[in-house]
């Protein structure tokens, strides 16, 4: 459907899905073009910031050398494992905290304290505890996401309208039935949104973990290239992470729209 331009540019106006995608691609392309032209003109030092074309060429070379796909899969695997662990722990604990005041009173101060500790500061202690194997990486990722996620789950559960709970009670639902049949279903769309956002944070902690203690993964690839001042390769590695992030984010958004289509109203 074609919408007139003024409508798209009106304050808080509306835009079609197609136009939305086109504008997104166009803007990204424009930035790349300015960057590329700046490189051609010699305004940018390639050792400092290589051009997009150089980065693309390096990326292709790295793919052919077998550096990208395998290491990307290793990184994705670590993220999924750690994130699943975080979510599987955070969801029941968060639900308990929001359902029973004493559980909340007991756990909230601890969670809040640990949540504010900068994860990178805990790298030394995690190496002392777990060495430099997979456990350290999973632990650091878990540390960076679990405590944040618990509080987000509590928040989502607390925001379930009291009316839903009371309707269920007058229909004869018992507490665990209210939790599963009502609270869980009502909070799910917001929870999935929060999981999507938290998943993004995982990349930050993963790269830190892979830089400090690893011989595989995209963080290792980037750090290794830096050692030889291969800026183009560093940028190529960063680019791959951005691409994976963008793809997973869009995938979860699309699933969200599909699974929670019932939220869409006609008016």
């Amino acid at each position, binding site marked *: 459907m074609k919408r007139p331009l003024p409508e798209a540019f009106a304050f808080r106006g509306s835009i079609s899905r197609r136009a939305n995608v086109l504008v997104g691609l166009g803007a990204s392309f424009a930035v790349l073009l300015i960057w590329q032209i700046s490189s051609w003109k010699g305004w940018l030092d390639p050792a400092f910031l290589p051009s997009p074309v150089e980065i693309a060429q390096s990326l292709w070379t790295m793919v052919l050398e077998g550096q990208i796909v395998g290491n990307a899969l290793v990184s994705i695997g670590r993220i999924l494992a750690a994130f699943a662990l975080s979510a599987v722990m955070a969801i029941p604990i968060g639900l308990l905290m929001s359902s029973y005041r004493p559980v909340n009173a007991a756990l909230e101060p601890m969670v809040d304290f640990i949540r504010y500790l900068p994860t990178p500061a805990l790298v030394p202690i995690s190496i002392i505890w777990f060495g430099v194997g997979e456990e350290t990486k999973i632990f650091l990722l878990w540390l960076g996401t679990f405590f944040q996620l618990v509080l987000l789950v509590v928040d989502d559960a607390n925001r379930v309208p009291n*009316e839903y709970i009371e*309707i269920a*009670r*007058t*229909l*004869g*639902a018992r507490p665990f039935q209210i939790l599963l049949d009502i609270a869980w279903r*009502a909070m799910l769309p917001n929870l999935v949104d929060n999981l999507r956002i938290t998943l993004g944070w995982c990349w930050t902690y993963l790269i830190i973990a892979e830089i400090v203690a690893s011989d595989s993964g995209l963080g290792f690839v980037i750090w290794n290239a830096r050692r030889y001042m291969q800026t183009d390769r560093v940028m190529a590695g960063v680019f791959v992470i951005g691409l994976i992030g963008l793809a997973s984010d869009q995938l979860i958004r699309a699933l969200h729209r599909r699974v*929670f289509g*019932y939220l869409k109203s006609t008016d």
Partner: protein
Amino acid sequence: MNVRTTEYLVFDGVTKRFGGLPVVDTPFHLTVPRNQFVVFLGPSGCGKTTLMRMSGGLDTPSSGEIRLEGEPVGKPDQRRGMVFQSYSSFPWLTVSQNVAFGMRYRPDLSKHEKHRRADHYLRLVGLQEFADTYPNRISGGMRQRVAIARTLAAGSEVLLMDEPFGALDAQRREQLQVELRRIQSEESRTVIFVTHDVEEAVFLADRIIMFSRRPARIIEDIDVTAQLGAARTLALRDSETFFRMKTRIIQTVREMEVNT
């Protein structure tokens, strides 16, 4: 036998405080016979909603007792169902699933019986065409019908309604009032309906309990059916008796405002 039918729902000297705040201070006494449509009319925040919620088991009286057929009211159960103004239906369930949800915790009903009842109540509120639609895609008035059908399907004998039509426009509100009256007499249920709208109260009620400002106290107990009869049609709204009764109540409300 007679005592049982007339003394159906009883508020026996009920008071309520939230912390230090008295919501119902003067012990509240009220006896509601079976199948009566009672409207709690009063200013916002006067405590009428709290009284209704206590009869549903959603709040506990600070003193006194509420009884349903002689049994003290404890925790909420299917016998007393709630219809709220907003968030009255579950958005992740279709209209028919919402109605059927009312019977989810009724293992005594067979699958076949649940199906039959869901169908019956969907038809009763005129939503059979929208059975597979999600609540966010129908109007606010239809969402309230879904809630009514769900409560009836659950088998609630007492419908507790907390300003259920408060968010609707005037036309839809009138239409739903007519339907609610029809449904209530067809299905023979007892209703406690909370509102601050005088016209709505007069049109719906068999009996109006008028409340003062907080702490809640009964100002007047009005037998509407004795004056207007039990049949409520749109034409009644234009009648002189209806108009006179409405005006008199509005005047009482004004006098109360002046005196406090």
